[in-house]
């Protein structure tokens, strides 16, 4: 099994992560919890799959990471959004919404409407 096969739409995980991080800087586990909260547990991925995505986003310059101390005094790597990441999130959210709109309209079309 390839680690990327998360069972969700391609690109969706990246967008969700960006969204989760945009709500405040998080460490990896925090991002996972936030994503699960945001999707109300509907999105089930293997937890490990999160990390390749985080690393990819970091490498693309959308996320910034630094080591700090977590709430229970553990060392942790915290991710936050870079300006580029913020821009990307905005664009992708717009794109997503447009796509949802288009797809919604398209899929709700009835026989007589065309």
């Amino acid at each position, binding site marked *: 099994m390839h680690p990327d096969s998360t069972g969700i739409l391609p690109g969706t995980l990246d967008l969700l992560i960006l969204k989760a991080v945009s709500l405040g800087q998080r460490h990896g586990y925090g991002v996972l919890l936030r994503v699960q909260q945001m999707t109300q547990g509907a999105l089930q991925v293997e937890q490990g*799959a999160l*990390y390749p995505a985080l690393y990819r986003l970091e490498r693309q310059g959308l996320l910034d990471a630094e080591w700090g101390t977590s709430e229970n005094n553990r060392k942790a*790597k915290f991710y936050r959004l870079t300006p580029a990441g913020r821009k990307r999130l905005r664009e992708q959210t717009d794109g997503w919404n447009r796509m949802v709109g288009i797809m919604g309209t398209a899929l709700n079309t009835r026989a007589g409407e065309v």
Partner: protein
Amino acid sequence: MRALFAAFRALLTRARFEREMREELTQHVQRRADDLVAAGLSRPDAHRQARIEFGAVEAYKEACRDASGFAPLRVLHGFGADLKLALRRLVATPVFTLFAILSLAVGLGVTTAAYSVVANLFFAPSGTADEDRVVVLVTRWEGNLVSGGISRPDYEDVRAAQTSFSSVTASAGLDVSVATPTTTELMHAEAVDGNYFDTLGSRPVVGRAIDPQDVAGRHDVVVLSHALWSLRFGADTSIVGQRVDVAGRPFEVAGVAAEGFYGREDRLTATRVWIPLTADPRKRSSALTERDRQRLVVIGRLAEGRTIEAASAELAALGAGLDAAYPRAKAVGPVQRDWAARQFNHSDSDDILRSFGLAFVALVALVLVVACTNLANLVLARGTSRRQELAVRRAIGASRWRLVREQCAESLLLAVAGSAAAWLVFSGLRAALDIDVPLTSKMLISFRPELDFGVVAVAGGAMLLSLVVFGLEPALRLTRNRQLRPDLASAAGAAGIPQGKRQRRLVRWQVAICTSFFILATLSEKYILAEARHDSGVELDHIALATMNFWAQQWDDERAARALGRVLEELEKDPQVQSAAVATGVPFGASNAPRFTIATTDRPITERGAAHYALGVAATPRIFQTLGVPILRGRGFDDRDAAGARPVVVLGAQTARRLFGTIEAVGREIQVKPSGSDGLRRRTVARKLALQAPSAPVPADAEVQIATVVGVAGDTDIGQLFSRRGDLVYLPLAQQPTTVSFGIAIVRTAGSPYVAVRVVRDAIRRVDPELAVESSGTGLGALGGPTVFLRTSSLMAMVLGALTLLLTMVGLYGVQSHEVAERTREFGVRMSFGATAQQIRALVLKDGYRPVLQGLAIGLFLGFLGRGLVRAFWWDGMSVADLWMVVAVPLPLLLAAFCACYFPASRASRVDPNAALRHL
């Protein structure tokens, strides 16, 4: 460099990345476990659950590496594991590993050490800039080209008239005493013109060179050679301006010549000091005009665009012009100025040395070839034995890269271990070879192996190439495609014709090389055998001696005799000295002993057939005890034989027989007359290498003396070690009829002769600090001369031969063992059809012997060819082939081959047919 730095940084970054990633993922699992514990799970269960939820951690790590751009390094990821595996495999086969490392150590260590010795001896640069453009003026004389023999006015005329050279200079060679802080030694010097250093293009490292003002102003200044400066003056840079006595006269040190610059002579007679031409301390004989005083060597640097041929033609014309203007009536050398130009530094002795060196380098290269083929053989055998494993692994999905990489790891480990072993070998050899081998009494060959990186690169490259090429070849060939080849996978396949053909071909050539080494090593077999049972007549073991050249120092007879007497007094005072003597020569080894004509009194000494030429040793009474020469009949010398007393002589036994036959010689009278110089001239390698020492002049008015034979002494070698040709007469030093031009002080000691050498030198220095020691050494060292050199070279050939033999046999053993393992099933089949153990053994032995016999044939041919070449170029007295060589040389090889083949063969004969056939 920058790439290297980047790679290094990437490595560091990567290590940090790995650490942080591990930490982050661990933290994740722990946080999840914490949450699960909070939710009510037990700690172990929580951990387990957390890990399950996380998924395949290694796969995610790999994905993270990919995502972070560390993917290219994955090529190397796991190389550590490869190394570990390779190490384990090497340890599991200690014999192979040991032999491979041994091959590498010998191939690299021995060849680099041997080559660096040779390079240091024969091919070091002369220190002359653009040597190709420097020529020396030579005279054609009796079929030879003679350099030197140019008079000062001739030189000045040539310099003024010539157009071929940008600069012309002159140098006169001389031996002078130089007083160093510890000893006074006779050294080779050059008296040079002011532009000498400029013409040769050598710049001094300290101070300045001799310049035209020094020559014009007759300044007593001296330039020291680098070797002299570092050996005797402790490389002291404040030496410039200090006083050094040259020929008993104070000279001011002007500078130190560049390292490696040895002047116009060859590198064995390297010049040690340079003085201005006009400061030559030697007295001039007034009998000669300036034109007839021929002692200069003229050297020129070709002008831009001029060729050596054009320069030759111009010099010939100038010479002819001078002949017409100043004809020479009679000269010591050539009468006609038949001049030409010859390449500088191409003297005969240099050429011989160079060809000798080249021959040695070729031999060393052969050892390298043997070591390489051996290594190739070993890894090839190992590779083929892994065929099945590789084929199966390839078939079940191992990538080609993976398999090749494993092989690389193994080669890398072997190369590293081999280099370490080679370094040990080289260090050992460097310590062992740090010696001086005397060539003649005045010349030493100094072995100082220096690590030469070019050679290390060549040898290392060759070894690595054979390691990688032959190591990888089977792996590459087998993994070309993925399908499982039936001939490899099936057990029966291996029973076919084995792969050993190529390996046997390698063995054949190894044996050939090895054989030719042994044949060449037999070159000096006569000397080695002779030396083992030869009695030189002199007990060389416990004597030390030092020679003094009064003639070169221009000391008169009286002063020389007085000095010799006082040296003897000093020596006899020393408690370490058992007995001591001073003499004008010794029976052999030192070439300057005077020669005499002797005859019985019944016929005139001038009559043909009556006169015998004999070496004359004029010595103090204890010479016989000191040299260990027995007095067979009569007596030795004693105090009765004083200057004014009746002249007496002691004859060598052989000489006594020659003069008087069976009649008792003691009590009879003979005629003695000083005669000319060296009559023993033979063309040998040794003699060609040795430059002739100047012989003392004989006074023309020497008188015939009638002397009584008082004793007959035991025979000794005469002239040189191992030579009994010639006659010998001992005279009391006090009655010595010729000038004392040459002195030798000899002591016999109970202790170390090396310590005694210092005793002799110190005594001479105490007597007169101006008295120079020409040469000194232990008995064998100083008198053994060329023999030591021959023995050393022959020993080297033997050692190289033995090394190649060892390597070859190791290789043969490896190949045979491997073959037997490969053919186990075949033997099983044969045995099940009724072959006996003997037949199987014979089969294996035959297979093993075939390449050895072929190699022997080739090797004998090559060896005799080599001896033929040696005979043609260096040594016309030897025979090319002797019957005993054809018998004796192959014997050790055949024996060793038997050992190498026997064990695998007997293993083959013990194959259990049932066990072998079970896998069919």
